[in-house]
């Protein structure tokens, strides 16, 4: 189960996300993410993927391995979620609403941090055409600093 603090981060604070898969030959691939939402079970995440990065189904059906990294631009607070593919779907209304929220947060903070026009930033978060659902198995802290790479869920033994 995803802890409450990280659920709040996912809902309100994360501004950019990217995901990773690998094929049968262990070749990794990057897939940009246009939005995300957590299902009621609090362990399954829905990732909205834009059309240009939807070539991931074959890899997911081959091995099921999926990783998702979400950062809050500015604070650099970052988490990586690793888990197992459970299915795909077309984006529904809730997915599109989550996409719009992420797009607005991204445009606002990139404008503040990098000085780029908000309209340009909004265009960078492409409209999703596919939703990947995966069950979270592990969560890692990736905020730059001494704790980067520390596993939060399940907790590492001291």
């Amino acid at each position: 189960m995803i802890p409450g603090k990280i659920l709040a981060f996912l809902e309100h604070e994360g501004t950019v996300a990217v995901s990773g898969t690998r094929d049968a030959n262990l070749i990794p691939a990057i897939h940009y993410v246009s939005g995300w939402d957590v299902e009621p079970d609090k362990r399954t995440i829905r990732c909205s993927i834009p059309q240009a990065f939807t070539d991931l189904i074959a890899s997911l059906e081959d091995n099921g391995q999926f990783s998702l990294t979400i950062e809050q631009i500015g604070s650099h607070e970052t988490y990586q979620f690793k888990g197992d593919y459970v299915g795909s779907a077309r984006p529904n209304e809730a997915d599109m609403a989550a996409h719009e929220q992420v797009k607005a947060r991204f445009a606002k903070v990139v404008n503040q941090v990098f000085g780029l026009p908000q309209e340009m930033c909004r265009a960078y978060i492409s409209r999703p055409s596919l939703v990947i659902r995966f069950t979270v198995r592990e969560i890692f802290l990736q905020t730059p600093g001494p704790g980067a790479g520390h596993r939060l869920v399940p907790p590492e033994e001291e």
Partner: protein
Amino acid sequence: MGAVELPDQIKPVMQNGIPAIVVTCSADGIPNTTIISQVYYVDKTHIALSFQFFNKTIRNVRENPQACVALNDLEGNAKWILDVQYDHSETEGPIFDEMDMQIEAIASATGMSGIFRLRAADIYRVRSFKKVSFSPASLQGVTHGDTGYTKQRASG
């Protein structure tokens, strides 16, 4: 089979100060996705990644040298995706010194001075690349710089 050569237009994208992404995969098949502060242009066929904190990335590429790198070009309306292979690490010399200087500049500009520290410059050979363009209307096009990568990958 000829080597893949990066176009000159990718150089400013590597210098725009916008973080990049790297995905690696462990020997037991678990992908790892990280955000990194810098990708350094070495020459037309090689890039360097900064080794600072992400020990899982470092461990993965020593086990499995394949990696995928994405560069963000907001002003150019594009994302660049590079398939690369880890070659070696440098802990001194001109590439290391220049990356160290650039990382300190990025750290200073982003309020992370004293936290970012370059441990090594990891040098990767570029196996293929593609540029994914986008527009406000979400019409997207893909151009490839791919010299037999699929065949090369299939033959190991």
